[in-house]
């Protein structure tokens, strides 16, 4: 189909560009504009100059960067060994390792923060025991330590999954060749394995870094405010949507994310270079002493990273849990509450995220099709805009939507778009679009154009070819991309908080937030959290079933 410009392709591309322009570029531009204009609507850089003049914002910028780097560093300490183990060893329970290690992504980090307080907090399980036995406590959760701890436990899977994909793409012979040349052990790792897994590792670290500097829930729940995202949110919601500093911070956040994406583009571009040659990956059956050590490490790493989940599970059954190691009174009421009294949170989540995932699959497949199969000018623009949501914090997108869609009635809804739940579906669709584009892009690249040509040669028209040949071939990639969109949308909070028009339209993440807002409802919130974990856990498990060993590649930049 590389046959010059086809007007249908052109039409499709312009339609997609228009759609993405309305729902991505324009809202973000509106946010950008606020930060670049003065009261009279003239262009000014004053606000940015002021930003760098203020010690508070300089400190927040520094703290954000530092927390990003620290999370990547500590996350790597857990993620890289786990990735190595999951890519290189065969053992029973490997699928459990792979599923469990994606579970941290499942709970919204702000819920994780609450749960972790119960375990590692000032008067959490661990410190109460320490106090009892040694009359001392360890401030795990204070200040930035707590933020970095929670975020490390939440975001390390991004590093792990990407690294594991890269590692399992390295064929055995590349390392054997080095051994054959006299190289082994640590040197072998440093000179061959490490450089070859670097693209995946960097891609993963990058996602983790961007997500950390955009993360809002964790610092808010831990009351650590000297971070950019938190400052932006506090500004916009406290002083008002007209507070220019909030927008300036938003723009700085976007710039930071873009800069890191751009800085790592070399690695992202060659991300797949280890797969140029196809061959068997290395894997070793675990046995003996090594097995014991490795299982011990897995147990320890997963045990720590699943602490928040344990905390939530216990909390969801707690009636009274106050300054004691475990709850003093248990109850099942919280589950009765969320399933029978207010079941709409669960229902809404399924409705919104499934529609969003479906739209993402359609859009992702269409965009990937144009990127891979067409020679249209403007392809690169399409690619850039479809990738942009990775760098746009949820808060920024939400603020942009309120700005753009609030004032006027959207045709067919009978009110502004922001008064309908459709705005949430749109936000989720946009936020997760990069994942399905990437997944379909990768899948489509594997389908040689000759397969399509064969179908056309046998008389199928273009549309039929796409539906009967191409789509079935890339179905695995599409489904996996859709599942990722579903899974991550389930726990989306940043844009949800700002966009939910009314409480009955809220999804689970909003429900958890609301419950956590009421002094008596924390445990019900935790019960919703457990439901979210189960939902997303199921989604992740299915992703692994569909994608197999390469499940991690779906979480890739």
């Amino acid at each position, binding site marked *: 189909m590389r046959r010059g410009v086809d007007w249908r392709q052109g039409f499709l591309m312009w339609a997609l560009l228009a759609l993405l322009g309305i729902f991505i570029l324009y809202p973000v531009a509106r946010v950008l504009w606020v930060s670049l204009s003065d009261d009279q609507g003239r262009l000014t850089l004053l606000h940015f100059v002021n930003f760098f003049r203020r010690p508070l914002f300089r400190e927040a910028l520094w703290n954000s960067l530092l927390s990003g780097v620290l999370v990547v560093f500590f996350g790597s300490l857990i993620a890289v060994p786990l990735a190595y183990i999951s890519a290189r060893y065969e053992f029973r329970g490997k699928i459990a390792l792979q599923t469990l290690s994606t579970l941290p992504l499942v709970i919204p980090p702000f819920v994780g923060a609450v749960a972790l307080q119960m375990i590692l907090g000032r008067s959490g399980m661990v410190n109460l025991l320490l106090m009892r036995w040694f009359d001392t406590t360890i401030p795990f959760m204070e200040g930035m330590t707590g933020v970095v701890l929670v975020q490390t436990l939440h975001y390390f899977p991004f590093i792990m999954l990407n690294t594991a994909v890269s590692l399992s793409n390295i064929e055995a012979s590349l390392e054997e060749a080095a051994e*054959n040349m*006299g*190289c*082994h052990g640590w040197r072998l790792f440093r*000179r061959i394995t490490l450089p*070859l897994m670097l693209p995946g590792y960097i891609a993963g670290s990058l996602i983790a870094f961007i997500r950390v500097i955009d993360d809002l829930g964790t610092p808010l729940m831990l009351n650590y405010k000297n971070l950019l995202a938190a400052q932006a949110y506090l500004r916009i919601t406290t002083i008002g949507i007209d507070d220019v500093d909030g927008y300036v911070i938003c723009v700085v956040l976007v710039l930071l994310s873009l800069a890191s994406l751009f800085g790592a583009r070399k690695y992202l571009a060659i991300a797949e270079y280890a797969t140029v*040659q196809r061959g068997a990956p290395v894997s070793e059956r675990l046995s003996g002493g090594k097995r014991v050590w490795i299982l011990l490490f897995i147990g320890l790493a997963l045990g720590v990273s699943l602490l928040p989940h344990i905390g939530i599970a216990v909390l969801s059954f707690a009636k009274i849990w106050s300054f004691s190691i475990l709850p003093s009174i248990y109850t099942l009421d919280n589950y009765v509450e969320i399933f029978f009294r207010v079941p709409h949170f669960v229902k809404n989540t399924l409705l919104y995220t499934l529609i969003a995932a479906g739209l993402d699959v359609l859009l992702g497949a269409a965009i990937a099709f144009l990127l891979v199969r067409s020679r249209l000018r403007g392809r690169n623009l399409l690619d850039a805009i479809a990738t942009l949501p990775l760098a746009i914090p949820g808060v920024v997108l939400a603020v942009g939507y309120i700005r753009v869609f609030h004032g006027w009635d959207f045709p067919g809804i009978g009110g502004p778009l922001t008064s309908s739940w459709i705005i949430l579906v749109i936000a989720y669709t946009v936020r997760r679009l990069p994942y399905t584009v990437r997944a379909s892009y990768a899948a489509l690249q594997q389908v040689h154009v000759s397969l399509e040509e064969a179908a056309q040669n046998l008389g199928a028209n273009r549309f039929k070819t796409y539906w009967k040949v191409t789509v079935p071939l890339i179905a695995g990639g599409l489904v996996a991309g859709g599942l990722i969109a579903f899974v991550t949308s389930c726990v989306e909070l940043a844009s949800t908080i700002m966009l939910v028009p009314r409480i009955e339209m809220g999804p689970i993440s909003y429900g958890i937030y609301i419950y956590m807002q009421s002094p008596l409802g924390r445990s019900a919130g935790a019960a919703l959290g457990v439901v979210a974990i189960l939902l997303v856990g199921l989604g992740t498990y299915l992703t692994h079933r569909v994608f197999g060993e390469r499940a991690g590649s779906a979480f890739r930049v």
Partner: protein
Amino acid sequence: MEPAQVRLENIGKRYGEQWVVRGVTLQIERGEFYTFLGPSGCGKTTLLRTIAGFAAPDEGVVYLDGEPVTHVPPWKRDVGMVFQNYALWPHMTVFENVAFGLRERGARREEIAEKVKLALEQVDLKGTANRKPSQLSGGQQQRVALARTLVIQPRVLLLDEPLSNLDAKLRAEMRLELLKLQRDLGITTIYVTHDQEEALALSTRIAVMDRGSIVQEGAPREIYEQPRGPFVAAFVGKSNLFEGSVTRVDDGTAEIETLEGIRMTAALRPLLPSSPARGARVALNIRPEAIAVVRRDDTISSSNRLAGKVLASAYQGSLVEYEIECAGRSIKANVINPKGKPLFHRGDEVAIVFAPEDVLVIKTEQAR
């Protein structure tokens, strides 16, 4: 380093309950070009990997220059291996790839530069030093892999189907280059291939493998001309295999009736493991190039002459390949250098003629 002698003693390797190599014993002399030839899955690559140290044998011992090395790790064996897919490191340039082994050996910088340059010249790759492997053609990549291994002057050179990823013409060229290089360097070389032509062209000795064991070992000519058993006969070169029984033994010849009812005379040679007696069941092979195709009415007399009908004929310039139906089965016949000879077409009535010397008895089961 001096080329080494390689000896395998009763090597066995299994995956799970399945033995992929069993009871292999052989000795490869210094400077030999020794080939493991066999179909895929016969265990030849596994055997090569036990020599390189990537697969630990479950039984038996590997000796290098008389020293047992079965438990020496690959990085201490000093045997150079060229992988089937070349295994060039994509993150390093050609120069860095070739220099890798020298660096591992702690060579000085100038020495490395000098040797890499030489090695690249040796394989005709001047001027590619700063490129990445992905920027090279398949043939060039293959030669980088070779240079990378040769530059460290290993005691033994192991080649795992190095030519299988090249196109036919390139393969033929590289085959010759490899031959010259090996003979010049005098390095002990072990070669793994499923391509019998390659094996015959390159090797000083060949071990034909089937299902984990060596079925015949010998010089190329011996393997081709005196295959022991139908497997070798069929695998090495083209063949027409028959089964039958001996109806009469004369002085130096035997008359055999095949299962199809064809009667033919075979010359018996002292080289056979045991001469068939009357009533013995035998397996026979006649190479296609030993069979002449003549007109039915041609009067050439021979002790072995059969009437047949052409099923297919393929003219290939240097030879014509025929498939001819005789007594209800198909027989392949290659007429070499067909210039001036008559050309037959599908459906032509012909006769095939072959000498008793070309009817090889490859297996005998004496009658009880």
